[in-house]
């Protein structure tokens, strides 16, 4: 019995909904068993036919399916998805995996590990916007660094003493003890 169905049974009243969804999403039923079987193809689909097949493989409609640029650093035929952080998703919806706010067979963003609930919420409305944060950060660090660098070169001499006399500085040094002139 697949895992989502087991979960669905345990949550009780939701079971029917979950069960129906798990069956209706025919997404990745035959994709494979090992991690190498889940690997995306090396190149993006070239023909319209291949594109449709790839979209089906990832459980998407062909109109939404789009790949990353194939410039040598791309992700093959893995779909390019909009970034939706888990924290910004509906907290009251019924998910197959409520801990991850994910549904069975749902396509994942390629950097999905970065947008989990414990990570960055990209679409969050911040109390303080990023440019204000950056200004404050640079301001505080900048003022501190400026003061530090100035203190390296500007002396205020609070101790009020002359420099240390060294033996070869070419001057004569005297104590404050007096002796008679012969």
């Amino acid at each position: 019995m697949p895992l989502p169905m087991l979960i669905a049974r345990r949550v009780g009243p939701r079971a029917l909904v979950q069960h129906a969804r798990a069956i209706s999403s025919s997404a990745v039923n035959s994709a494979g068993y090992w991690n190498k079987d889940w690997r995306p193809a090396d190149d993006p689909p070239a023909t319209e036919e291949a594109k449709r097949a790839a979209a089906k493989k990832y459980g998407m409609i062909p109109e939404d399916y789009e790949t990353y640029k194939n410039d040598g650093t791309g992700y093959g035929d893995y779909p390019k998805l909009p970034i939706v952080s888990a924290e910004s998703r509906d907290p009251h919806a019924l998910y197959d995996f409520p801990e991850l706010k994910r549904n069975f067979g749902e396509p994942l963003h390629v950097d999905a590990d970065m947008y989990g609930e414990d990570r960055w919420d990209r679409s969050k409305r911040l109390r303080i916007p990023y440019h204000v944060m950056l200004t404050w950060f640079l301001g505080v660090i900048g003022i501190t660094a400026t003061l530090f660098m100035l203190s390296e070169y500007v002396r205020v001499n609070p101790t009020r003493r002359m420099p240390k006399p060294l033996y070869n500085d070419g001057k004569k040094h005297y104590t404050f003890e007096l002796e008679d002139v012969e």
Partner: protein
Amino acid sequence: MGGTVSSRPPASPVIILEKPLSKTTPDWKTGELCADPNYGFEEQGKRRKERVMVATEAEMISAKVPPKLRDFCAHHYINFEKCKKDKFPFVYRCHPEKHNYEHCQYEDYLIRMKDYERERRLLHRKLRKEKKNGGRNHDE
């Protein structure tokens, strides 16, 4: 003593305040004096004692004294280091040597502060006289 080793630390790449801001602030960076160190003492028939450097340059080189420590207390420093080397690891037995060295540094610091105060008062006196004489210094 003409030293072959430059004992001054290298100059900073940027110096914003090379000279003191005020006319009556002594030049604490170079220790430049506005008058002869014995000025004012000759009238009393007295003279300040010159400071004596006990350690010779050869001794300091042989003991590898760092340039910035080659001051008038260098002989105490050499004694202290020698004692530490002899009695290692029981360096606490060098307490008298350490005390001598630190006391010498303390006395040195007192002289430096007195020098500063003398220079400051002389600068004030010079300014006072200049004002009195209408910008001309008749004191020199």
